[in-house]
């Protein structure tokens, strides 16, 4: 657990020690790199995570996000086209009442947002959502 957490923090601060991960394919974007680093290249399932974002956001500065992954020990959020792909990571404690969280994130531009859940058995699940970021009005 502690190891995972430290790993996540390391990714977030942009220190991508990719050289230490031989055998990983070339990645289309830094978010994929970060995800691969977190999973160690393990297979990622789909269907276990519900990720809800608006299809269109008038203000990329505050985009509401809701994520839910029953049975997850942690959930990490990635935005592939942000300057730093790591957005936020939730680690659930013993008194967590559900594996659901709502927050607000920044999106630099129109892009895909990914939620990656680490499950109790060590497997991974993920979900993606596409958000169109339009230009705001009077500020």
């Amino acid at each position, binding site marked *: 657990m502690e190891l995972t957490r430290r790993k996540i923090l390391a990714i977030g601060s942009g220190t991508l020690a990719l050289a230490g991960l031989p055998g990983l394919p070339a990645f289309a974007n830094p978010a994929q790199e970060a995800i691969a680093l977190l999973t160690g290249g393990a297979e990622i399932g789909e269907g276990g995570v519900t990720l809800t974002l608006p299809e269109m956001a008038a*203000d990329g*500065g*505050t985009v*509401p996000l809701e994520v839910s992954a029953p049975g997850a020990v942690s959930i990490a959020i990635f935005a592939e086209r942000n300057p730093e792909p790591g957005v936020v990571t939730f680690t659930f404690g013993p008194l967590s009442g559900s594996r659901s969280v709502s927050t*607000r994130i920044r999106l630099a531009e129109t892009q895909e947002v990914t939620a990656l859940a680490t499950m109790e058995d060590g497997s991974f699940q993920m979900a993606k959502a596409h958000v169109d970021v339009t*230009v705001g*009005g*009077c*500020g």
Partner: protein
Amino acid sequence: MTMNRRMFLGTTAAASAVLSAPSVLADGHAKPRVVVIGGGAGGATAARYIAKDSEGAIDVTLIEPSKAYYTCFFSNLYLGGFKDIEDIGHSYGGLAATGVNVIHDWAVGVDRDTKTVTLAGGDTVAYDKLILSPGIDFVEGAVEGWDISAQNAMPHAFKAGSQTELLKAQLMAMPEGGTFAMVAPPNPYRCPPGPYERVSMVAHYLKANNPTAKILIADPKPSFSKQGLFEEGWNTYYAGMIDRIGPDFGGANVSVDPAAMTLSIDGEVTNVDVCNVIPAMKAGRIAELAGVTDGNWAPVNAADMSTKADPDVYVLGDSAQQGDMPKSGFSANSQAKVCANAVRGALTGSRVFPAKFANTCWSLIATDDGVKVGATYEATDEKIAKVDGFVSTTGESAEIRKATYEESEGWYTGITSDMFGNAV
């Protein structure tokens, strides 16, 4: 490639030729008649430009109940003590001098079949083209416990004048360490940064006169115009004084009791000393009476501001549902000039040029600390669409902020002389 002059004239001449036949005038009068309802940033500008540019070829009548017009823009600066109430008051003498027939009365009805406007005084006024610029009214029942009869206990002050003076008087009468509450409106509404500039100005006043007082904002919106700039300023100048409760913490679940002077946010009741309730807004009532609204606002065509409901009725400013422009005095003034050019062209065959719109909103956060946001717009088939824009940034130097404030003062003088002409 650059177009030469002849090519350029050729294209515009062709464009205007299509519109050169004056629209059909009702029988029995020599000159085309334009009636404008509402003498604010939209209406006064439209009336003045049509009268000025048509040089007597069009009869222009402006119907406006107030003899003195107080601008909503800069009214927050009066609350903050930066302006006197006289500084934001204007007469209609300059418009009359430009040849506009100014009638001080309420328009209470529009008959689009006979093309007449009925006045509260009983008269009717006939038009060939009607321009409505009535500003805003409030959606009934928008804030539980508040209706227009409560505006003396809990002023909105979102129509400038006596309401603004009342709010200022209440602010000055606040007990030491009291609470100034604001119920902020949901989108869309007049002047997106307005409530937050108001909070800044109230805080400026309180910091000097009642430094232990608090400001409580209940806000149904998750974010607001120039939020980063305002929050930066609030933290710098008014740290600890301002508390904004957004929808996450019940800012959209609000009720007030004007008799008890309480504000309830998500069931939690707070005693307040001043309560500035700014309810949800809709188009001014005459737009609804004229039958040109759809829902709360009046949909218009971007090219000339004519309504979707009637090509001879135009709606300007806050009441219009036009697309991307914010509801602001600058926007209304910009729309009015496009409309004036189109109306004059339709009535006299004068040249009609392509619609160009712009808006800039300045806000004052503290002494010599002004910020601005602006954009340019164009007419598309669907709406007025944003082309380009800019916004002040956080962390700007004091010199830039001071220049921005001085610029806003210059703009105020500019737009008010553009609206009203120079009074004689």
